């Protein structure tokens, strides 16, 4: 067990190094003078060039700069935007709750729908409920989330006028108002996740239902529902957990488009705003943050998996 943890942590550190290094390298490789890139062609305040040079240690060699930047980044200092004059870490901490809420809600919704759908498919294997759900899952997997989002806007905001097409009400403004603005983006994100999860549950369950202990439970006269949800679902929950973890990490990045579509001021929204104003430090900061979160969440999933399933521990 200790060996597994050591291995996973070692890989985490290596990956984090790679992630930060590549992000830093990307910015460092920019053609031309970084000062020009950061300031653009607009009018400049006197002395700002020297300030940027000093802030970013531009006169030092590449590796010295990387180590200095990494040291700052580890303590939460990702620099200050030269365009909005706001520390990058402040931007992240203000925007993260919105993105996190979207990601968590869509994961919860998709798991809640995916489990019964997947179980039904495995239970009625080859019969019409399975055919219908499997086909639905295949189609759902193929609809890009932004297209589904636009369709939802058209249906619920334009045609039915039940929900707003954009804008965001903070959680502190009341839960009902918050949900009104959160539900459409959440559902658009959840569709593909749900399809992915239910396909996994179905194929896992199909394998489990062939096991001998299911046969013996059936022989003992237990009800089908009890067998399905108590006996058969439990071993499948492990792989479901893994994929949920990975999906959560991916969602942090995947919300970029949905936030843009619904005009939600989350992490992805600021990333696109920074891209449009060429705010290099913010792009760098948010990229490194999302990538690091992604890597850390995957590591946690790996560790949990090793804790729960003794078979995959390293010898």
């Amino acid at each position, binding site marked *: 067990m200790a060996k597994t943890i050591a291995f996973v942590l070692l890989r985490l550190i290596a*990956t984090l190094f*790679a992630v930060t290094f590549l992000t830093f390298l990307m910015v460092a490789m920019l053609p031309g003078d970084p000062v020009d890139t950061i300031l653009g062609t607009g009018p400049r305040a006197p002395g700002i060039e020297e300030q940027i040079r000093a802030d970013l240690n531009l006169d030092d060699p590449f590796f010295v700069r990387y180590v200095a930047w990494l040291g700052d980044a580890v303590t939460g200092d990702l620099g200050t935007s030269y365009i909005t004059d706001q520390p990058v870490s402040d931007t992240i901490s203000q925007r993260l709750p919105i993105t996190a809420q979207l990601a968590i809600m869509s994961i919860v919704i998709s798991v809640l729908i995916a489990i019964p759908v997947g179980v039904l498919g495995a239970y009625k294997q080859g019969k019409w409920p399975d055919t219908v759900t499997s086909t639905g899952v295949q189609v759902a997997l193929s609809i*890009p989330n932004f297209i589904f989002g636009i369709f939802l806007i058209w249906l619920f905001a*334009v045609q039915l006028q039940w929900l707003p097409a954009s804008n965001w009400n903070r959680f502190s403004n009341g839960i009902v108002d918050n949900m009104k603005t959160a539900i459409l983006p959440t559902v658009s994100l959840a569709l593909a996740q749900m399809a992915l999860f239910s396909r996994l549950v179905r194929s896992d369950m199909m394998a489990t239902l062939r096991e001998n202990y299911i046969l013996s439970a059936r022989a003992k006269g237990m009800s089908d529902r009890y067998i399905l949800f108590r006996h058969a679902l439990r071993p499948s929950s492990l792989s479901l957990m893994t994929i949920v973890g990975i999906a959560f990490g991916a969602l942090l990045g995947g919300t970029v488009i949905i936030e843009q579509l619904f005009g939600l001021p989350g992490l992805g929204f600021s*990333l696109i705003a920074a891209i449009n104003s060429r705010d*290099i430090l913010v792009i760098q900061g948010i990229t490194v943050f999302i990538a690091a979160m992604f890597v850390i969440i995957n590591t946690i999933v790996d560790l949990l998996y090793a804790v729960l399933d003794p078979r995959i521990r390293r010898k």
Partner: protein
Amino acid sequence: MATTETNVGATAATIPTGQATTRPVDEFVVPQGVKQKRKTPWGVFREMPLLVKLGTLWLLIVLFAAIYAQLDARVFNGSLPLADPNLQLNGFNAATGEFGDRESLEQPSWAHPLGTDRLARDTFSRTMHGAYVSVTVAIVSVVCGVVVGGLLGALVGYVRGKTETVLMAMIDVLLAFPALVLLLALISIFEVRDLFVISFVIGLLSIPAYTRVARANSLAISNREFVLAAQAIGTKRWTILRREIIPNVLPTLLAYAMVAAAAVIVVEGSLSFLGLSVQLPTSSWGNMINQARGDIKVNFGQILYPSLALTMTVLALNQVGDFFQRRSAFRGSSL
């Protein structure tokens, strides 16, 4: 290859049947002396389920549209002023300086099968040009993935040893990146707007996944009888890799490539939608959807057609990819 297969079949056939097994062994055995027929493309098409057949047809249509969009100058060629009066802004004719009589946001008609967009451009030809963008991205990334990723994976899966450990550790690190965010950062920082450069970057980022798939298959094939037989008669490792491993890794890898191409098309669509892919006025499905977004109350069709084209292409690639995946898996188990 074929002779090795039948030999394996022969040994399997000599296993005594009867008491233990209820199913006839013949079911799992390739009949001796009968070469398995290689199916013609038409034969493969005929054994497809209906949905997969429709998917294949749709993919052929998309491919045709993509090629046609490049051949016919009347289809929007990506640069203003345009060669085709049908495609200019409201039919503006550069030679005479006159505007055409087309309205913006027209409903579908014979002249404009999918109507016109806000700038009175023909949506049908813009959708066709969108197919060209998606097909290019898909093909470039598949070529990158299959050639580089496939070769690397097949190689380390067969050779094993330290090379494998190091390479797979690197691949794991690369796979740990959230690809879309990395792509966004890359493209935005370097201000890449060229279709081929974008395709190439996307292709580069999809190599790790191909390597994984190729390695897993190469590992499985390396232990099969025909590889052992080739080793036993002293075939060179490089020859084994070329003649035994790669041809057997390829079918599964290509099936994976179709599914991966679907994902890549969505990624390009997302980038286009965010305005970070090919530059306007070049049309791609993603940027058409984004541009039509403002007219959602007036003419939903302008959003619907490129959306349908994108979704159907992704669905078709997934279906056809899954079909070939199942098919190659069946082949593997029947030997």
